[in-house]
């Protein structure tokens, strides 16, 4: 965080903090709204009208209330691989580079606000509503206003940072020129200029934008802003019209996350954090430790098992990654595991979070592919267990044959002894209760997978209250952190959708699909190419974006080749999750890095630690591809 130096700056930041607080409380309130709707219609036969519409609008409103403060706090995900060493060795240069990035960000948010303004004005004039005339109506202008205000506030904050950095830059003693640094900026500018004045083909523009996005991400630009910038630039070049690009920015900001299903993001995060404070994860870990502690590498196996159990009550992998970094990593390190292996295992096991139902990615797949989310969840159960088993076996084998990597695992065995076995197993009851609530609710037809997030969060909150783990401060921390984590994800979804729209316009993905379909290799060839594509895209993009880009193109091919779309959903989700663990953009690894108490482990070390689990996950993916029945026999 770049602290404000002036009185004015401090006042501005505290306004942003209050906007942020309003946004996070709003998200928390949605949980009660959805639960009230579930209870209303189930118990009293009287649903609350318009809940999906209200929730969808709320998501947009609350993200834009929070975005500026997220920028204040530097919560937008970025890769620090290049910037961290630069900041150590060349602080002045790093400062100037950050000023440059802030300037780009400020321009993007100004454009977004400018693009959204006419739409806001029209919504007021025409009394635009969401809902159904005669049944339920809600005015949409307040949300459109929040979008304008939020984007403007974000722009102002970036301008503030820009000036602070410029001040620092001028105050610093004169420094020797860094030709290579200026060359980077110059090359970027030249490429953009050449694209603008030349007559590049769509494919060239697409390839150039992918390259620029990668360079910017590698150089530490927040990923969301890099995707937004290149998406915007690409659309402007492709359409030869800046106006369309500006309005696409604001449309993406308003339209992308304005859907009921995206409420699962904050709600599953909320549930994960309540589960965290109520120490259910610790209980699950203790119980697993008790069961597996006696075998070689047992603590590692216990981490996998606890992750698998935890996965059944959480829908996002980052929740698992964050929580087990806090619970399992210190425990493993204390018992002689190498930190590198401990975090690698935690990263790997976090993949289970979105394979074992409930799963945000399966929900998103179901929405795009229009297949039953219930079927997808059911189909994912066995593959999830299979992957957990593969991790456990892999851990034991590595502990035996590769102690240099895993560490001195023998010492852990003693720790598992001792009393408290009964209470540890008793501690599993709340976990089981939540599993029954969430999965039972979905399969019993009480609520949809989307609503399960709200019900689960409410259940987890009750457990935390009962366990007396939830005081006022703890509650506020949970609510605040939910907002902070979700705003980063939701804004990333907005940015990725801008980027993938641009890619669609270049026809690059369509070319790829035609290439894949035309290889004449049938299903095996298609799957091989698809897996390679998932892994390659997974290195640079987040899972949701990959689904958004690839599925519209891959699904017709699968149908054409006679594949089952539920099975394809399972292999897609596990395949895309490999990307959580691979550099340069690996979300689980980023989350682990930011959850670690100390800075001694570099991102590179965590990626290296996770690599064996990348291989295991890939092997299981190939197995699931080869034998569809593993996924479909339960249906």
């Amino acid at each position, binding site marked *: 965080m770049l602290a404000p130096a002036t009185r004015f700056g401090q006042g501005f930041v505290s306004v942003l903090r209050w906007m942020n607080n309003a946004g996070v409380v709003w998200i928390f309130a949605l949980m009660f709204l959805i639960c009230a709707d579930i209870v209303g*219609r189930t118990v009293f*036969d009287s*649903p609350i009208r318009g809940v*999906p519409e209200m929730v969808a609008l709320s998501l947009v409103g609350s993200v834009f209330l929070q975005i500026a403060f997220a920028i204040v706090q530097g919560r937008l995900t970025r890769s620090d691989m290049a910037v961290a060493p630069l900041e150590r060795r060349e602080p002045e240069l790093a400062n100037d580079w950050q000023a440059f990035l802030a300037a780009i960000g400020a321009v993007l948010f100004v454009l977004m606000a400018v693009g959204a303004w006419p739409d806001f004005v029209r919504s007021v004039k*025409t*009394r*635009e*509503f*969401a*809902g*159904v*005339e*005669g*049944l339920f109506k809600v005015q*949409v202008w307040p949300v459109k206003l929040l979008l304008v205000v939020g984007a403007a506030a974000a722009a102002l904050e970036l301008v503030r940072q820009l000036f602070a950095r410029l001040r620092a830059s001028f105050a610093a003693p004169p420094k020797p020129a860094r030709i290579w640094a200026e060359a980077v900026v110059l090359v970027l500018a030249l490429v953009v200029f050449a694209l603008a004045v030349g007559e590049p083909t*769509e494919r060239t523009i697409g390839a150039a934008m992918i390259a620029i996005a990668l360079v910017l991400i590698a150089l530490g630009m927040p990923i969301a802003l890099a995707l937004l910038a290149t998406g915007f630039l690409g*659309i402007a070049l492709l*359409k030869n*019209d800046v*106006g*369309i690009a500006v*309005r*696409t920015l604001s*449309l993406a900001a308003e*339209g*992308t996350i*304005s*859907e009921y299903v995206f409420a699962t993001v904050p709600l599953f995060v909320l549930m994960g954090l309540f589960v965290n404070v109520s120490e259910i994860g610790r209980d699950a870990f203790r119980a697993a430790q008790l069961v597996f502690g006696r075998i070689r590498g047992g603590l590692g196996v216990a981490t996998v098992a606890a992750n698998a159990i935890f996965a059944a009550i959480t829908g996002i992998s980052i929740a698992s990654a964050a929580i087990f970094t806090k619970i399992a990593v210190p425990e493993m390190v204390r018992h002689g595991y190498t930190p590198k292996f401990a975090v690698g295992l935690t990263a790997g096991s976090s993949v289970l979070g979105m394979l074992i139902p409930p799963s945000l990615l399966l929900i998103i797949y*179901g929405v*795009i592919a*229009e*297949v*039953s*989310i*219930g079927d997808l969840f059911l189909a994912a159960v066995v593959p999830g267990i299979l992957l957990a088993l593969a991790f456990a076996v892999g851990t034991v084998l590595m502990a035996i044959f590769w102690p240099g990597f895993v560490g001195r695992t023998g010492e852990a065995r003693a720790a598992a002894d001792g009393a408290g076995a009964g209470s540890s197993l008793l501690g599993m009851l709340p976990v089981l209760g939540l599993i029954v609530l969430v999965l039972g609710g979905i*399969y*019993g*037809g*009480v609520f*949809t997978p989307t609503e399960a997030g709200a019900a689960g969060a409410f259940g987890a909150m009750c457990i935390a209250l009962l366990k007396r783990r939830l005081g006022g401060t703890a509650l506020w921390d949970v609510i605040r952190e939910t907002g902070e984590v979700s705003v980063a994800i939701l804004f990333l979804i907005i940015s990725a959708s801008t980027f*993938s*729209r641009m890619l*669609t*316009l270049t*026809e690059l*993905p*369509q070319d790829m699909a035609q290439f894949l379909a035309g290889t004449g290799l049938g299903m095996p060839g298609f799957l091989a190419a698809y897996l390679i594509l998932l892994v390659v895209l997974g290195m640079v993009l987040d899972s949701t974006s990959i689904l*958004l*880009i690839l599925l*519209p*193109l891959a*699904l*017709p091919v699968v149908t054409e080749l006679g594949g089952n779309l539920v099975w394809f959903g399972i292999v897609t989700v596990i395949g895309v999750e490999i990307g959580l663990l691979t550099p340069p953009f690996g979300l689980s690894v980023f989350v682990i890095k930011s959850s670690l108490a100390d800075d001694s482990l570099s991102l590179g070390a965590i990626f290296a630690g996770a690599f064996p689990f990348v291989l295991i996950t890939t092997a299981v993916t190939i197995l699931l591809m080869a034998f569809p029945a593993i996924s479909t026999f339960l249906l």
Partner: protein
Amino acid sequence: AEPTTIKLTIASSHSTGLPWVGVMHTLVVPESNKRLAAMGSPYRIRWVEAYGGSLYKYDNTLEAVEIGLTDMGWVGTLWELSKLPLQNVTYYTPFATDDTRMLYQVMNELHDEVPAFAAAWTEQNQRFLGASALDTYHLMTNFPVNSVEDLRGRKILAPGPSAAWLEGTGAVPVDGGLTTYYTQIQTGVADGVLTILTGALPYRIHEVAPYVTLVGIGAQVSGAMSINLDTWNRLPGDVQQVLEQLGDEYSEGVAAEVIARYERALETLREEGATISTLPIEEKRKWVAGLPNIARSWAEATERRGIPAIEALESYMNAIRERGATPLRNWDEPG
């Protein structure tokens, strides 16, 4: 001389498996250049096709054409109750007609003849080319329905404006969508659904709701193919002319496909053991008589937003009567 190429993006939120998207791909795209060549035009269109929601999703079909993210596309008018209220007149006038083909003809004609219909699209910076119409709504339930009375106290899936069709029947409307109907009925959240058969069949709703009661609540106009206005104004006259022609043919192509699928769906449902019956006409009269005047209250509320919905309602009802339909209720009459 080499023909001059004009690049146009054509897109949709859904895949070509659906008639209103498929016909763009199988008719509009290939036919346009054939026509231009045949009439000796110096222009050819280079189409960039982006279906299946890769460019935008279902809730932004209107805005995507408005801002020019795509030049042409299928717009789901049924999701635009606020911005395109008049185009939703069919949802507020149940039991008017079951004739899908007639309905698109009426809608295309209204866009030519009643200024407010075309003006609604101009407001959204686009131009209407041709409507896409759906088959009529029926009931699929897990209990037999012989009379309106049988619906009393039952929970029936009826999203959006269709919830109003249940007013006065004593049924409780439940929200949902094609992808969720099956589970909702299977798990007892609902006892049945108001749906089009062409939509319900692929989702195998009949497995959980095997009683298919042919009610005929009415065919619907659910969307239209439209083109961005800036793009339109830039196009040469002969290209405009061809696209205009193809607009009508698009509507016919969609209707023909929908009607064919409807016939096939009825047959398949019968083959797969669904119990198909027809709701007697006197029961339909009872149903429609029990409804409040939802069309009139919709039109009045829309008038308050400065849109001439009463005139639109009257024009619509007149147009279908002129074509020989006998609506079970004259929604344009007060009361």
